[in-house]
């Protein structure tokens, strides 16, 4: 770990919305390249970056579409910089191609998805949390990624830094899964001093040029070291199944070895990667699971339930992927049930059900999006499960 480059760190207390805060997070994390294509409600992130970039030695380019934006950042990463792109539902759909490419080529990068109502053009200006499965399963083939869910502008800042750090540590695309409300709500955001911000540097290899292997795993992260174009390593990077040298090798044996590692480097380290926020889980009858903006509405419902004497705990998913199975699994036998609230008609609840494996009840409070839940809807589910 090192510390943030002071160039660009706006130390101090600010009044920012989540989109702007995420942009500042990216800058503090060291991002010096972004390519984007405008889409509500995410555009403010790149608007701010386009404003900030020329003053901090960074580059912004507005591309012709999201297909282009999502691979331009990958080209920039292999050119040696930290890079990210930002979008919302319809653009996120177009980016699926390069989630797979980034996973396959182990290109560290960050995608910010400010979720809005779908499917299709849906609700351009209104919230949802309905891309949660798409981020995990939307690109073809087997893969694992990391996805984080901020519930405030401060967390948009903090978790965007975290996203960059994890992407470098595991050479994997990391996703900041915001939603329209968090993106557009304005709150106090504190930006620490540069030396207080921990940064995972890119792990450029110092190995011998003739023997370095771009895809040979190192350490318990099972993650290879990086090289960039122009350093003399003559890297070969391909989306085809490849061996440790990066050379195409389309045999079942290499497929097995390579894809397994892409998946296990995240799965084996899931407990280290996962962050959850737990509150009064000990002794609870009901535990409410939520994430992003919904966690703030759920908090109100939990307070109302506690006022009625119910024993309610909360688990907030800060990491949605990898899913914190171990957290849910440990709680399940000790409670009557979970209530899962989310702005979709049943996505992360499937993961909760899978982890619970029948050990307690799971109630879902879904919502098609467009606005947030009414706390009473969540309260009702809590009461039912507590009964």
């Amino acid at each position, binding site marked *: 770990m*090192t510390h*943030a*480059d002071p*160039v660009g760190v706006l130390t101090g207390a600010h009044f920012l919305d989540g989109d702007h805060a995420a942009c500042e997070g990216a800058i503090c994390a*060291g991002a*010096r*390249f972004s*390519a984007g294509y405008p889409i509500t409600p995410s555009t403010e992130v790149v608007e701010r970056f386009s404003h900030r*970039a*020329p*003053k*901090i*030695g*960074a*580059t912004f*380019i507005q*591309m*012709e*579409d999201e*297909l*282009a*934006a999502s*691979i*331009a*950042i*990958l*080209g*920039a*990463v*292999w*050119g*040696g*910089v*930290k*890079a990210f792109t930002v979008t919302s539902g319809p653009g996120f759909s177009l980016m699926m*191609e*390069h989630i797979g*490419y980034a996973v396959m080529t182990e290109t560290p990068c960050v995608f910010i998805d400010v979720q809005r109502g779908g499917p299709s053009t849906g609700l351009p200006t209104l919230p949802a949390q309905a891309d949660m499965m798409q981020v995990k399963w939307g690109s073809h083939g087997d893969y694992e990624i990391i996805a984080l869910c901020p519930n405030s502008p401060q967390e948009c800042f903090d978790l965007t830094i975290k996203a960059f750090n994890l992407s470098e540590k595991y050479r994997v695309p990391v996703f900041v899964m915001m939603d329209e409300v968090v993106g557009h709500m304005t709150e106090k955001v504190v930006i620490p001093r540069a030396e207080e911000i921990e*940064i995972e*540097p*890119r792990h*450029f290899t110092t190995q011998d040029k003739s023997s370095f292997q771009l895809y040979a795993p190192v350490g318990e992260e099972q993650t290879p070291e990086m090289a*960039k*174009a*122009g*350093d*003399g*390593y*003559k*890297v*070969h*990077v*391909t*989306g*085809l199944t490849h061996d440790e040298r990066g*050379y*195409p090798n389309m045999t079942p044996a290499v497929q097995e070895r390579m894809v397994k590692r892409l998946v296990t480097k995240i799965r084996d380290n899931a407990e280290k990667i996962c962050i959850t926020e737990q509150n009064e889980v000990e002794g609870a009858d009901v535990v409410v699971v939520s994430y992003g903006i919904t966690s703030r509405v759920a908090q109100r419902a939990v307070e109302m339930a506690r006022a009625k004497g119910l024993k309610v705990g909360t688990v907030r998913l800060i990491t949605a992927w990898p899913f914190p199975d171990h957290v849910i699994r440990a709680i399940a036998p000790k409670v009557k049930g979970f209530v899962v609230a989310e702005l979709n008609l049943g996505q992360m609840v499937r993961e909760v059900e899978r982890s619970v494996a029948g050990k307690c009840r799971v109630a879902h409070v879904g919502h098609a999006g467009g606005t947030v839940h009414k706390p009473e809807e969540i309260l009702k589910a809590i009461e039912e499960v507590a009964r």
Partner: protein
Amino acid sequence: MSTPICIQKAPENPVESFLRTDRMPHIWCPGCGIGTTVNCFTRALIDSKTDLNKLSIVSGIGCTGRVAGYVNLDSFHTTHGRAIPFATGLKLASPEMTVVVYSGDGDLFAIGGNHLIHAARRNVDLKVICVNNLTYAMTGGQTGPATPLDVITATAPYGTYDPAFNLPYLVEAAGAVYVARWTTFHVKQLAKSMQEMFKKKGFCFIEVVSPCPTLYQRRNKMGDALDTMKFYKEVSKVKHGAPTNEVGLSKSGEIIVGKFVDRERPDFETMMKAHLEASLGEKYIPAEAPTCS
């Protein structure tokens, strides 16, 4: 007792050091034109004394897309159609690199067509080499955006009836500063054009009309690779500076070759830097060689 035999080591082919020989044999069919273009490319690299540590190659998907995998350079085999936007990111992040895009007609002009015209419009400093075998070869010879009228393809068993793009015309209109076309018969001229292109700043484009004897020529009863060379020799006409709207290809008509466009226009990075410097003055910090703390 056997007589000792003295085996003389064959003189090393100067092109070999440019190739990932540990990846040979390559996948291309006998008589395929792609290998010929790679040979010209390596010759151009040798003759132009390009610093090979500062040259990257980016390919899309297809038989031509495999070029990136065989050259001993920083090489990127991307997704279908997206070589140009990848190369754009790479170039902007490391402006000191020469970035070559090497891909097929289908990759660059169908699925990647939008990216191509926008990169040309912006005049991003990319050197694009398009191997035009007039078909989607890798997938079995289907109709592509450069397939001429009245030819048989895997998806046009009764012949094609949708008109093809005239690649140089399109690329010139979109803003390229250098546009040339050769066939795989014109190896010397092609290598020379490539050298010229390495030196030119801005969006450069070379179309190489190239045989796919396995699919295109065979299906259209146009003979083998040798017959195709004879055909190219016969129907090609060198016309430097030819108006690009007059150089469209047909199934068996003439092939106008030569350098069509060589003009000056500030490239994307130059425009960006000049503009930001003018607007921001001392506040402007240009993106320098990458730092990645």
